[in-house]
């Protein structure tokens, strides 16, 4: 290892690290501008890489540049780069950028070069970024996968904190980066790794976002966010399997009454808003183990699992009343909504979920025939 470190030629290494940062900045810029991949997050990441690359350049040119310029380069540009990186973390999750801490650490930085202070600020920024990334990841993932996602970012934090501790304990040891020393060579190797890890970490966060969005889109109806027919059929199969193990379930089919006149007289936008309002209202009355699906058009279905017959009837009645009480308005104009509901309780002797679905469908028709806005059991 020492032999490898000794082999490295410091100016070459510096040039290579700067090149990596600039290449990363270029790639993020291309991703954001041309592929429209989370444009604001990509722009911030391009800026962070650019600032860090420039920080190294001005540090490398120490001696050629005026002294104060190199100081700005090494400390301020470096801290600014990490402040932008920290700001970009919530933007990946489509939230506003977090600038506050990045701005707060600013006055702490003294005018004279003080490695410990700037790395303290950077470590603090990265720690906060990690904590927030953890919070955001935990909303979507279980602890172990979330930790895996966070791992590269944690390594980056560890590296900058190690540098902070080192500067605190041995303040005399840090020569300007341009000077050839085995410590500087080691630190530059670490900076190279840091550049790669930091960009990999952010790329993973963005990829995770896209993958989750694709999963959502393949399982959910994009308008109402209820399960689509395929996903609901899967949920129904699971409930049917549960029935065999003695967990009863119930199926409700809801068809909105007089929906076509709403679409025709107020337009499709009004119809869409009504569907969203209905889905939200239904969802509010269900437990986390129940499923809400949209079969297309104005037809919804609800799976109650596990459920006792008595409470299934209660829930069906409650849903019917909730929809009737829903105060839906379009451009200030109220429009009454209601639904005809068919309820079917799965029987232990039924081996196919299809049979339950047919009974619920027949019951829903009976409710329509009997004058709408009511529950029928099949």
């Amino acid at each position: 290892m020492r032999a490898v470190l000794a082999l490295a030629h410091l100016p070459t290494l510096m040039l290579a690290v700067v090149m990596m940062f600039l290449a990363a900045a270029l790639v993020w810029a291309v991703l954001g501008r041309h592929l429209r991949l989370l444009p604001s997050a990509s722009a911030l990441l391009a800026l962070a890489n650019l600032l860090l690359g420039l920080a190294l350049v001005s540090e490398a040119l120490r001696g050629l540049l005026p002294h104060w310029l190199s100081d700005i380069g090494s400390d301020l540009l470096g801290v600014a780069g990490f402040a932008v990186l920290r700001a970009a973390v919530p933007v990946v999750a489509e939230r506003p950028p977090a600038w506050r801490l990045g701005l707060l650490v600013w006055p702490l930085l003294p005018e004279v070069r003080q490695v410990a202070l700037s790395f303290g600020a950077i470590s603090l920024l990265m720690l906060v970024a990690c904590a927030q990334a953890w919070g955001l990841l935990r909303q979507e993932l279980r602890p172990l996968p979330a930790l895996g996602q966070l791992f590269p970012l944690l390594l980056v934090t560890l590296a900058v904190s190690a540098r902070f501790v080192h500067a605190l304990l041995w303040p005399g040891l840090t020569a300007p980066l341009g000077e050839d020393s085995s410590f500087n060579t080691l630190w530059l190797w670490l900076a190279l790794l840091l550049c790669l890890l930091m960009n990999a970490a952010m790329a993973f966060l963005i990829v995770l976002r896209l993958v989750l969005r694709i999963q959502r889109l393949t399982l959910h109806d994009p308008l109402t966010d209820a399960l689509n027919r395929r996903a609901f059929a899967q949920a129904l199969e699971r409930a049917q399997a549960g029935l065999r193990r003695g967990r009863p379930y119930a199926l409700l089919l809801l068809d909105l009454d007089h929906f076509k006149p709403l679409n025709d007289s107020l337009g499709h936008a009004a119809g869409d808003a009504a569907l969203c309002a209905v889905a939200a209202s239904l969802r509010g009355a269900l437990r986390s183990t129940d499923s809400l699906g949209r079969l297309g058009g104005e037809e919804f279905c609800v799976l109650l699992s596990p459920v006792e017959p008595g409470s299934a009837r209660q829930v069906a009645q409650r849903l019917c009343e909730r929809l009737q009480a829903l105060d839906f308005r379009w451009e200030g104009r109220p429009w009454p909504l209601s639904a005809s509901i068919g309820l079917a309780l799965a029987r232990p002797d039924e081996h196919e979920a299809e049979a339950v679905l047919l009974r619920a469908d027949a019951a829903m028709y009976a409710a329509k025939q009997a004058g709408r806005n009511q529950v029928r059991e099949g």
Partner: protein
Amino acid sequence: MPTVDPTTLLLVNALFSAVAGLVWAALALVFRIAPLASGLLAAAHLLTVPALLGSWCLEPLRPQMLSQGLTRVAGVLVLALTALALRRLLRLRWRRWDLLALAAAGLLLSAWGGGDSGPSQGRSLASLSMAALAALALHDLRVGRGGLPPGLAWILGLPLGGLLLANLLRAAGWSATSCATSTPLAWAWLVLGLSLTLGLLVLVLHRLVVRVEQLTLSDPLTGVLNRRGLAIQQARLQAQAERGRPYALLLIDLDHFKRINDQLGHAAGDAALQHVVQQLRAGLRGLDQLARLGGEEFCVLLPETRLVEAAAVAERLRTGLKTRPFVWLGQELLLSASFGVAASEVSGPVAESLLAQADAALYRAKDQGRDRISLAGAPLPEAGA
């Protein structure tokens, strides 16, 4: 200005390749994104490390042929795996044998050449086979660049072209020493490797973004545009209509469709909708857009089409639908549909009103007994049946 040290560049390149290999492995195993292509690229990047460091680390190894042979094998494999992954990512026909045969031939020839007449001829043959692999990858890119934004084709094409050129030069005897001692060679491998890797990452992310777009804009059951996708396409035609290029719109509603759903079940209804989409597509041009507005209602956008031509298209679709029955569990069902036709040249280029007029025409067609077409803005309602 201090000189640049090739060994350091080599080490930087190796570190980058190792991290990139782990990133590809994570994409393949954790995110399951294009698992096969990402897996191939993970292997290619991890193999790059011995390909780069082999000649330098193994230099003391005797006989020298062994260390050089290992480096060569790794180099050829890296390019073969990368070319395979690119073919996969571009969604080209999944042929493997040309690339694998080329790699194997290169390896055999270089081993044979190396044994026969010294190491330099062996290296030339290996370089030649690497150049051929790069050329094949470039050919694939040329064939498959249709779906890519033009910038992305360049981002991938330039490093591939660079690899082709560098390997050809090397086969011709350029920079005969290993890349641990030749600065231009070390630079070439670093810049080309870095840009190719980043280009491939951009390609994978581009595919993900396109996938999300497709999912948000298409109907999951039939695969045609959904209402949001239709609105976007119509806005595009709208802009063209304002510049004097007319377009037409057909609104299609299947007749008595609820009966199928009620009597045969939802599965039959879904299959019938898919059957209808198939029939409609068969009667349309490549640039026409088909959308499902929900339920049993469809819409067709016909660019560069006037009302009379649109009416002819609608008539063709109507008869086409009637002549090819929908078959469900051995039972033949005749489907029919009512059509409302509107065109920007008659109705004026306002999106909302064009859709509303087609809707009004559709209602007229339904009113007059279904299975017919009706034109918006036409003085006399035309009967199709």
